[in-house]
């Protein structure tokens, strides 16, 4: 026969186990809808997309196994893929520069500058604008005949003839990038500004007492403390570079030639313009792999623990 103390302990263990099971069941119930939606709308399509990339498929034809044909086509024969990849990487490469620019602006509007709040609002205003509207506005500003940019350049004597910003191979991509940076700059600035304002002032006070110069305070306090904000900006910048479909579609539709083609516009054109859904699926797999790799690198760059819970 079990002694009384042992019985109590066994009963207590059972109680804790039952309670733990109930808790887990409750957690599972709460998570289930989200997990179901995530599985149905993310994991399943992604899996199907990967499968599709190894098949010949169109809406009305039965799928046939293609093996690596689409990947071979993409890597060995499709110049447009390489152009689109290069443009996408340039788009991504510009993100750090835009973040640096936003950091400078955030430092300025965080200082005692007169009218800083007004500048802050003006810079942020571009972010909530619809991307389609931004594309149309910039397209008209760049217009060769009636655009304000060409007007100013010609009136000020900086250009003798109109510059076909969106119609030339040389200017088209930089012009789209400028519009892209203009729109997202406000977002970067607000994120960095929030980071700046959450740095405890006593750190600067202590550094000042120790005689640290301003640049040292920036390198040793500001930048390290801004790491999470900068990481967020970098990730959003990368994602934004991959999904700048609407801006490119409105401003240049990937042209002239394929001078502003991005992977995302190429995927759309292949799928819906040329009914090559199978090939578009292969392009999507490459884009996804690239996105994963870049996010991993960005995470590593900030110490490998971005996004972990701080207890």
């Amino acid at each position, binding site marked *: 026969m079990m002694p009384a103390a042992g019985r109590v302990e066994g009963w207590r263990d059972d109680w804790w186990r039952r309670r733990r099971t109930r808790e887990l069941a409750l957690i599972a119930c709460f998570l289930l809808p989200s997990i179901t939606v995530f599985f149905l709308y993310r994991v399943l399509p992604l899996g199907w997309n990967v499968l599709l990339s190894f098949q010949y498929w*169109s*809406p*009305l*034809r039965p799928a046939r196994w293609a093996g690596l044909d689409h990947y071979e086509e993409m890597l060995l*024969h499709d*110049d*447009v893929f390489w152009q689109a990849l290069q443009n996408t990487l340039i788009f991504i490469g510009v993100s750090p520069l835009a973040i640096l620019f936003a950091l400078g602006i955030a430092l300025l509007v965080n200082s005692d500058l007169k009218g800083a709040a007004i500048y802050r609002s003006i810079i942020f205003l571009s972010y909530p604008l619809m991307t389609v509207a931004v594309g149309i506005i910039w397209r008209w500003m760049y217009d*060769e*005949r009636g655009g304000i940019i060409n007007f100013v350049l010609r009136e000020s004597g900086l250009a003798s003839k109109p510059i*076909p910003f*969106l*119609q*030339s*191979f040389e200017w088209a991509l930089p012009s789209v990038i400028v519009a892209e940076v203009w729109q997202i700059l406000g977002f970067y600035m607000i994120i960095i500004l929030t980071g700046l304002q959450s740095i405890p002032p006593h750190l600067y006070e202590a550094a000042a007492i120790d005689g640290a110069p301003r640049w040292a305070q920036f390198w040793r306090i500001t930048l390290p403390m801004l790491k999470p904000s900068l990481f967020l900006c970098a990730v959003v910048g990368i994602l934004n570079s991959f999904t700048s479909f609407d801006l490119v579609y409105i401003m240049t*539709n990937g*042209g*002239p*030639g*394929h001078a502003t083609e991005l992977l995302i516009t190429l995927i759309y*054109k292949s799928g*819906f*313009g*040329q*009914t*090559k859904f199978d090939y578009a699926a292969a392009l999507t797999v490459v884009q996804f792999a690239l996105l994963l790799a870049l996010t991993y690198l960005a995470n590593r760059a900030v110490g490998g623990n971005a996004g972990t819970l701080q207890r």
Partner: protein
Amino acid sequence: MISRRTLVKSGAGTIAAAALGMPAIAQAPKKISFLTWNIIDQEPMIRGWIARFMKDRPGVEVEWLDKKGPEIPVFYQTQLAAGTPPDVINTQGALGLEYAGQGALLDLTPRLNAEADVRTRFNADYLSNWVYEGSNYMLPFYITKTLLFYNKPMFQKAGLAGPPQSFDEILASAQKLTASDASGFLTLNFDWLYWPLYAMNGVDLLSKDLTKATFNTPKAIEVTERLAKATEAGAINKISWTGRWVEPNGAFAAGNVGMLHAHSPAYFFVKGQGKWVTPETLGVAHAPGGFATPNSHGLGISKASKNPDLAWDFLKFVTNEGAQELGVNRKLVTGNVGVDARNLAELEKNDPLVHAILKTQLEHTDKMVGNWRLGNDSRVKEAFWPELQNVLLGRKDAKTALADAERKVARELKRG
């Protein structure tokens, strides 16, 4: 707890309700859907067609959907994938052939053979634009092809007597019309609309059996080089090779471009924006040699339609009873020979300029080019056009670009 009596009552009630509902299900109307391409402005007319069609056919229902141009392929293909495509579909250009090539459209040939009066209703050249591998998949809804618009005051100022009669004259006239703020020539470029410039030089894109690329010839290289040089010199406006619809038409409407090579609907855009446009100032002509690229709207039936006979009835109704109203309302030609003759006769009295424009659409219909009956036209276009753009905008030499284009086009043709 439910008693046995209540349970039996509920069961009996359910069975009775189901039995009463069955005739209603059996009498559910036959329904077809009608997808149009960006003609929402004609809503009262289309609703009127549907009402008249349904009135004569009790128990029939027609649902109308309209989508803008870029949305149509996305919408239709997702509907195809879901197995619920609209019964009757309106497409522009070669898209209908692409869908036919995919097996999405119903072959209308047996129906056209069985009803000779329907076949003879249409201009045969336009009707043949939707023949894919020997079968006809669409009927003309409204038809267009390219022509040459020209700015008469600019021509007079440049000392030009009239529109050019050859490719050489196009370039020479364009050069004469060019000034610091004016250019001589503009063309629309989408859907092969620029192809008459090559056709008038005897260059063809593909072999007759559509299996080989035939454009990489010394003549094609020469034509391309001349176009590139004229573009560099400003005689051909660069927008010709970069814009799509708004930009080139807008540039011509501004009044400082001598010629616009475009299809007939461009007139309404130009007229809307260009205050200078009057019957006295706007000239209308065929491109040299009478060559033109069609860019018409057709109507087809989805193969997955559950009511193909009803859809065919609707197609015949729209292209006959509906065509008259459409032609008058939108000032266009429909491809229905009788309807167009009546409408043009009216327009000659009421609107001579539109009459002159629409008349060109029914002339030289045997000289239509750039309308290869391919099931993968968009892929061939994508293989060819960017390379041509590279030359015309000064990025590559013609010889290299056409060789690259030939390789890419051959690859697409092989892919099928």
